[in-house]
């Protein structure tokens, strides 16, 4: 039942409507003006839709990675590759030590040659060391033999399982296409993992013996190690000694691990996630086992960004202060558009410049004797984290500059006036008043510059050297001159070559998801800082 008031108002409103909207043409109850409004409204939604679509499609392609990775890790265990990797790890450690010894020998050789000794004299001087190094190197041979035998077994098992997977897939496809007869023809002989790995585990007693011999030989080699005069050289040898002792001490643990290893132990889903997020290896198209660990790429991206920001932040903020506070109007009128203009330089052109000019120039600079005291100099590679970092700095300077300059300009004028009135000079005003007052803006400028740097692709792809490895931080500052690979670079480099829908393809999308999340987080934090710490006095 209509209330009294509504009946009373109804006629009035319709009269008013009629007066205002006479002869209005309507489609679906909408006037043309409404339609126009909704049209613009629809366009405004596009930004939201695009952001949603990016999220959906990145995850759609990426999430399947974990399932595939878990199956991959399961096969790694079932086929006994994990078991073999216990031995491989031992051998790898030994190889690394041998490499250290060789490097030490090379350094000593160069030093002695520089002192004016003939090659014969040098060889004679190093004879006792060489005997030790050879004994050291040979001690592992038997373990290596076992490793290679077991590797063959494990790989054969894995290949069988893979063939079966392919056949199953084929059969499923035929079945879904309704070709049952053809599907029945495909034979799948299940792999007996228990038997295959049982054979491998059966060699454990023999391996124990081999391992004991290895320990003896290595111990003997260490006993025979010579004492050299050069303290640096001796330090290197001692370092290898310590490592070798640690290896010998760890042998029983390795054997115990091998004994406790079980091919059938379940692989939890979380393993797939952790092996991606914390995996220290990104290894693809390997004969043995592919690894998709994001850590080396993430560290590479971070390292390059740190270099870039270390250069760009002081320069960008200094320029912002200069332009907003010190420069005259004419100078401002030239410098400001110029720096904004820099942001339009295509990154691929900068990358090319890095390859063609900057990389060579930096390496040449690092080879000058006057700078040889600097850690990491001379650089071994032309394209490394520093080359990419320098160019990325140039990319991020306009972002940092414009935003920081805005922030400085937004400081209310009376702040400055009050400071001058108290007798502060211009520099004191800048440092004590303007910069603290606009600090939130400057920090968010730096953050957004960081976002720009970490998302940049072409420069790192062309100039960072593309070596997928965690930089050797034991070298201190030298780590900055090593080639690295980055998250953006790996996507650009490998996306064109992968099988659509495969595990590698999905892994690249997961890297994309990480990048996307990172960019959102950086954006969010930058905004929070601006809102939270904006001075309310104005």
């Amino acid at each position, binding site marked *: 039942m209509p209330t009294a008031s509504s009946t009373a108002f109804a006629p009035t409103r319709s009269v008013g409507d009629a007066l205002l909207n006479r002869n209005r043409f309507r489609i679906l109850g909408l006037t*043309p003006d409404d339609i*126009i409004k909704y049209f*613009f409204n629809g*366009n*405004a*939604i*596009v*930004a*939201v839709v*695009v*952001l949603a679509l*990016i999220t959906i*499609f*990145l995850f759609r*392609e990426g999430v399947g990675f974990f399932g595939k990775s878990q199956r991959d890790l399961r096969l790694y265990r079932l086929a006994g590759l994990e078991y073999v990797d216990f031995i491989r790890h031992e051998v790898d450690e030994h190889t690394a030590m041998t490499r250290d010894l060789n490097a030490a020998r090379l350094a000593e050789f160069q030093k002695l040659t520089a002192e004016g000794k003939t090659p014969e004299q040098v060889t004679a001087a190093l004879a006792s060391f060489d005997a030790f190094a050879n004994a050291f190197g040979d001690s592992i041979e038997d373990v290596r033999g076992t490793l290679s035998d077991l590797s063959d077994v494990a790989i054969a098992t894995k290949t069988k399982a893979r063939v079966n997977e392919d056949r199953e897939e084929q059969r499923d496809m035929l079945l879904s296409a309704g070709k049952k007869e053809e599907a029945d023809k495909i034979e799948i002989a299940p792999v007996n993992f228990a038997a295959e790995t049982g054979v491998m585990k059966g060699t454990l007693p023999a391996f124990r013996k081999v391992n004991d011999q290895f320990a003896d030989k290595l111990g003997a080699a260490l006993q025979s190690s010579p004492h050299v005069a050069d303290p640096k050289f001796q330090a290197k040898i001692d370092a290898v000694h310590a490592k070798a002792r640690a290896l010998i001490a760890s042998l029983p643990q390795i054997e115990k691990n091998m004994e406790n290893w079980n091919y059938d132990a379940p692989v939890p889903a979380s393993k797939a996630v952790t092996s991606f997020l914390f995996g220290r290896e990104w290894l693809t198209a390997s004969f043995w086992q592919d690894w998709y660990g994001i850590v080396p790429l993430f560290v590479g991206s971070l390292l390059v960004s740190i270099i870039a920001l270390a250069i760009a932040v002081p*320069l960008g903020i*200094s*320029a912002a*202060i200069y332009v907003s506070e*010190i*420069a005259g109007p004419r100078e401002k009128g030239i410098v400001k*558009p110029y720096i904004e*203009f820099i*942001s*339009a*330089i*295509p990154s*691929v*052109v900068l990358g*090319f*410049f890095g*390859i*063609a*000019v900057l990389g060579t120039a930096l390496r040449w600079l690092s080879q000058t004797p006057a700078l040889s005291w600097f850690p990491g100099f001379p650089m071994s590679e032309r394209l490394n984290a520093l080359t990419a970092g320098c160019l990325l700095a*140039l990319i991020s300077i306009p972002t940092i*500059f414009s935003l920081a300059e805005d922030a400085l300009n937004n400081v209310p004028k009376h702040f400055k006036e009050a400071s001058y009135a108290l007798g502060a*000079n211009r*520099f004191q005003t800048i440092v004590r008043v303007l910069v603290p007052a606009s600090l939130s803006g400057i920090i968010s400028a730096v953050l*957004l510059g960081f976002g720009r740097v970490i*998302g*940049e*692709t*072409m420069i790192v*792809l*062309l100039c960072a050297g593309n070596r997928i490895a965690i930089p050797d931080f034991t070298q201190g500052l030298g780590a900055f001159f090593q080639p690295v690979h980055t998250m*953006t670079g790996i*996507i*650009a480099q490998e*996306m*064109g070559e992968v099988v659509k829908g495969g595990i590698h393809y999905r892994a*690249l*999308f997961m890297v*994309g998801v990480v*990048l*996307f999340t990172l*960019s*959102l987080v*950086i*954006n969010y934090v930058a*905004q929070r800082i601006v809102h939270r710490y904006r001075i309310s006095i104005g």
Partner: protein
Amino acid sequence: MNAPVNPFVARKSSARTIEHIAFGFFRTATYFILICAAVIFGFIFVKGGQTVFRSSFPFVNVPFLTQAPETLYVFQFEGKKMELGDRDFRKFKEERHIKDIPAESYVYSSGGIFPCIVGTVLLVIGSMAIALFIGISSAIYLNEYSKQGRFVHFVRLAILNLAGVPSIVFGLFGFALFVMFMPMLQDFRNPTVLSFPVGFGHYLNFSGWNVCLLSGWFTLAFMALPVVITASEESLKSVPKGFREGSLALGATKWQTIRTNVLPYALPGMLTSSILGIARVAGETAPIMFTAAYVIRDKMPWQVDHPMDFFFQGVMALPYHIYVVSSKIPQNEYTERVQYGAAFVFLVIVMGIALTSILLRIKMRNRYRW
């Protein structure tokens, strides 16, 4: 006795010295940035100019700008060192009836970059049109129609976040959506993907558009969107409120007001400041790597059988070509020409767009004053 002392002369103090040093540092930092950029420009211009310009008539290296890339062959012939492009090399051998001449070959190092220029221009025009259309419409909504509220806040948040998304992520997104998923109207049912019959024997197959212009356009346009929206809104805001109020007071509808009293004043500003953002997008390589660019393609974009095929073809693009020639072929005196030449031409195109925008903006600022 004492010389008159000017009481306003600054006394020497440590604070003053520090100020001088600090200002010197700020100035040095600023000019260091400018010089670095100038050095890069200089290198590319000088080295690239040697490829693109000639000292004699017509002063421009016409073949470089009008031919497709070819393989370069460098060989010794009758004691002379010869450099020939692929076609000339074959002709040379035929004329002399020689089967084979031992030669070093460098891919893409001869011929020109014409198809890449065409591809880039097509990509920029298409994406610019889409980005401007959607961007300006959104800006009109946000500035003219919307009221402060949840929805508008949400839209603005999305725009802000979209601006920070890395270009390679846009590339991945474009690949996953446009290249791999978008529906195509085809006259057969594709069993491997989602497929809906639409009648007349046609099916909507969600098999994606493949690597093509259309995919590249949308990917680039979405990337440029935040810049265009922000720039357009800025321009709309600068139109005085009185213009709108006057029009509304005379009985004009909202749309009439916007059409006659807002857009004419805001549009030039919108276009010019948007173009700066678009120049930046035009310089991007990562988004088109998997969505629109081919390493090499024999046909020119207009050589298509069916008009619709025009939109569904991949193109060669200048930024991608620069990436290919600088990373996939060695650096030496023969390859250097095409590398610097391509970089130079691309830089000129992008910088040209950016410079036009900046100059127009300065001119515009002097035109309307209210």
